[in-house]
């Protein structure tokens, strides 16, 4: 009987061993030379004749319907499967015409006329016309989803002919071209989407049923077609055989939703994936000496900030401008950068580095504890004070806001401000209090909606984020009008001038201290070229080639 038991145990071990060997055989095609995924010798993934690139990215999204997408990663997929009238060709340049052939603003900047390219076809083979553009933008607007606000300045649209779209704006909008690059305003194949329940009618928020379809495949004119989307697992993109433009040599993308940074680091090292999108500082250092791996670090446009409520009822001592300046001087910006990791920047003030008109980063030696103490004495707090800092459970690109709050607490202790950190879940009270402007003192972050400095204008007095800090337009009659001025400054020079004025006026005053632009960490296999961090798209898959 002992022998029988042994036999059972050995059989079980053999099954496991066989399974392990089975995998190592199939995996060896991908692991030995670092050219993972290029061929599928023993598999059946349909990539035997072409290049397949495997990419791992974070989670936190639940739909790939362009009308609803808003989070960080969906633009990566939408940009590969759909196209917009305008596009950012790289992280530095301004929005350039893409599906648009040319464009023209009226004298009063209230009308934008866009001529469309005439040779564009969707993956279905349908030609793209102005009706598709109208449908897509109206659908996004009327779905009343997260990104609908992007259409706020679009009063109406008309299509005088098949290849002309006229936008009538509610006011001059210096960011309108940037907004038209946003994934939610991608041009959909209206015929296909309508056939699958889509509508751009005013009641689209209750009558549109196309999301289920657009979560299984794409209906755009982009270089790729989404052939599979398994939520929280993977997305597969395959080359659009009907692509109207020039493609790259990547035939297929397998995009794994793999939120754990350690798992991404290991799978990249072993060659199971080609690109790791959301690594942490620790995992990056583990990869530094890895063969065939290239690392990219740079500041993203996601910015962390300290908010001090201007309303004394909520802010108490931090509503005093002198105290606000003292806190600005007491923060150890270099230390904050260390916590956030390599690639972190401290923006000059309200506008992040990298945006048009942004000034050089705030110097890390800006800190002056003695001067901060003097200011506190002038403000009537020679012995400092006690204050609660409410912090949410969120993280900024992997950096916990509670860690940043702890750093602020330590820094302020140097000037005798005793901070008591109170944590509160975002969805369980913090979000409401933040939106209602009842938080006195907090650390929060802000991710850019669309890639344009105008997103930061919301921090000005009287605007949505400004009001969360109790900062009304009446409190700063010099600064508040700059919102409208920046919105209407459609010429670059005038725009830069007003953006610089805003930054100068908020460098040493105001309820917001921008403490860090979070870093983005990406690592990839050197068999690829054209891999770059992209603020608008996370990464532009249409620029990547296999060497």
């Amino acid at each position, binding site marked *: *009987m*002992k022998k029988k*038991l042994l036999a*059972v*145990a050995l059989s*079980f071990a053999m*099954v496991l061993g*066989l*399974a*392990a060997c*089975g*995998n*190592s055989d*199939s*995996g060896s*095609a*991908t692991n030995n030379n670092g050219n993972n*995924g290029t*061929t599928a010798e*023993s*598999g*059946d*993934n349909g990539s035997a004749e072409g290049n*397949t690139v495997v990419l791992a990215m974070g*989670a936190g999204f*639940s739909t790939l319907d362009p009308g609803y997408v*808003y989070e960080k990663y969906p633009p990566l997929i939408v940009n590969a499967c759909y196209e917009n009238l305008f596009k950012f060709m790289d992280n530095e340049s301004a929005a350039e015409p893409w599906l648009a052939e040319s464009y023209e603003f009226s004298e009063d900047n209230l009308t934008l006329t866009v001529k469309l390219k005439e040779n564009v076809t969707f993956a279905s083979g349908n030609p793209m016309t102005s009706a598709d553009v109208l449908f897509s933008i109206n659908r996004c607007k009327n779905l*009343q*989803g*997260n*990104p*609908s*606000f992007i259409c706020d300045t679009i009063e109406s649209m008309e299509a005088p002919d098949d290849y002309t779209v006229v936008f009538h704006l509610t006011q001059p909008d210096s960011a309108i071209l940037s907004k038209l690059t946003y994934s939610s305003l991608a041009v959909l194949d209206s015929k296909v989407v309508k056939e699958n329940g889509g509508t751009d009618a005013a009641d689209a*928020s*209750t009558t549109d049923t196309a*999301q*289920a379809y657009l979560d299984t495949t794409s209906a755009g004119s982009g270089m790729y077609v989404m052939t599979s989307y*398994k*939520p*929280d*697992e993977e997305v597969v993109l395959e080359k659009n055989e009907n692509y109207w433009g020039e493609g790259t040599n990547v035939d297929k993308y*397998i995009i794994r939703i*793999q*939120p*754990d940074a*350690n*798992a991404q680091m*290991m*799978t990249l090292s*072993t060659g*199971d*994936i080609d690109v790791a999108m959301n690594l942490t500082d620790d995992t990056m250092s583990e990869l530094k000496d890895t063969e065939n791996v290239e690392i990219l670090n740079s500041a993203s446009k996601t910015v962390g900030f300290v908010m001090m409520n201007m309303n004394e009822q909520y802010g108490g001592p931090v509503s005093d401008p002198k105290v606000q300046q003292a806190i600005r001087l007491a923060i150890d910006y270099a230390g904050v950068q260390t916590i956030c990791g390599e690639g972190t920047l401290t923006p000059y003030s309200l506008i992040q580095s990298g945006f048009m008109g942004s000034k050089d980063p705030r110097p890390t030696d800006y800190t002056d504890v003695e001067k901060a103490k003097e200011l506190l004495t002038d403000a009537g707090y020679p012995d400092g004070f006690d204050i609660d800092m409410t912090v949410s459970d969120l993280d900024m690109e992997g950096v916990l806001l509670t860690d940043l709050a702890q750093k602020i607490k330590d820094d302020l202790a140097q000037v005798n401000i005793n901070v008591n950190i109170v944590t509160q*879940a*975002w*969805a*369980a009270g913090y*979000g409401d209090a933040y939106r209602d402007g009842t938080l006195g003192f907090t650390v929060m972050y802000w991710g850019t*909606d669309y890639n344009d400095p105008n997103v930061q204008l919301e921090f000005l007095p009287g605007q*949505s*984020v400004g009001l969360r800090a109790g900062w009304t337009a009446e409190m700063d009659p010099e600064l508040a009008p700059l919102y409208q001025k920046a919105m209407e400054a459609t010429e670059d020079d005038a725009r830069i001038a007003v953006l610089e004025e805003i930054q100068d006026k908020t460098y040493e005053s105001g309820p917001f201290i921008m403490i860090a632009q979070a870093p983005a960490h990406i690592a990839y296999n050197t068999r690829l070229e054209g891999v770059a961090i992209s603020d608008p798209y996370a990464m532009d898959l249409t620029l990547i080639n296999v060497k």
Partner: protein
Amino acid sequence: MDQLKFIIRRLLYLVVMLLGVATLVFILTKLIPGDPTVANLSQRALNDPKIVAAYKARYGLDKSYPVQYLLYIRNLLQLDLGTSIRTNHPVLEELGRCYPATIELALFAIVIASVFGILFGIISAIKRNSILDQAVRAISVTGVSIPSFWFALLVLYFFYYKLHIFPGPGRLSTNFSAPATVTGMYVIDSLIEGNIPKALDALSHLILPGCVLAAFTMGLITRTTRSNLLDVMSTDYIRTAKAKGLSGTKIILHHALGNALIPVLTVIGLGLGNLLGGMVLVETIFNWPGVGQFAYESVMSADFPSIIGVALLIALNYMVINTVVDILYGIIDPRVRCS
């Protein structure tokens, strides 16, 4: 006939219990702080009353709690668990998507835990107080006490990253496409497709997460088997068997093990129920798209229909497993059947 009555009675309990669980979880989700609108709409969208109103209307959040409850129960009786606030897809469809992955992993883990747990328990009892016994006990204590997320990272680091023995995260290697869904369990579906290499690949991906998940239950099974076997071995009928001159192995396998395994069955059942509820951290580390990950994302999004759906699924798991265990009790021990 008795057995049939027993099963029918259990099924009736099941319906009542599920309604109770649904009610309780519904009340709890409304009592705890957490606003799905704040959790799911962006900072910008929250500023726009039109968007907020449209969002609330879409998911019935604009109705009073009693109305929401009545609608929920009415739909539940029609087997409609509602629409996920996070994904905008039917909850039943979402559970149908992620549950097979969890079942596959849980079954694999429970088989490993049961086979090795019982084996180790027997060895430990036979070789009581020997070095082998001490070693097995040390393994079982380690299995019970080691944090699963840490163990998961550890095995991934050594067996995948350093030694390249087992495959890494995910359910299949990238050179295989997912098999056509029949059961949702990749090993079985690959076999149905007739694709042996794919089935082996899927099986190999189960090994590391399966072993990590098995560790805890295996420890419990080992300890329970050992202690029960030792108890049974000191009873009179075993002494009688020894006096009759039966061999040690025969006594254990034919006379002692059957009785000793009854409590072990309970442990296995509870362990399986626990595994079927999904293990968030292990699923996250191994990129396993199961119920655990779904539950985590649902909680983070205050996605109440999905949270209630997962709670019902977990309750259903335990109730079905307990029923099966009770039936198995009767098969193993006729005295239970008589009572």
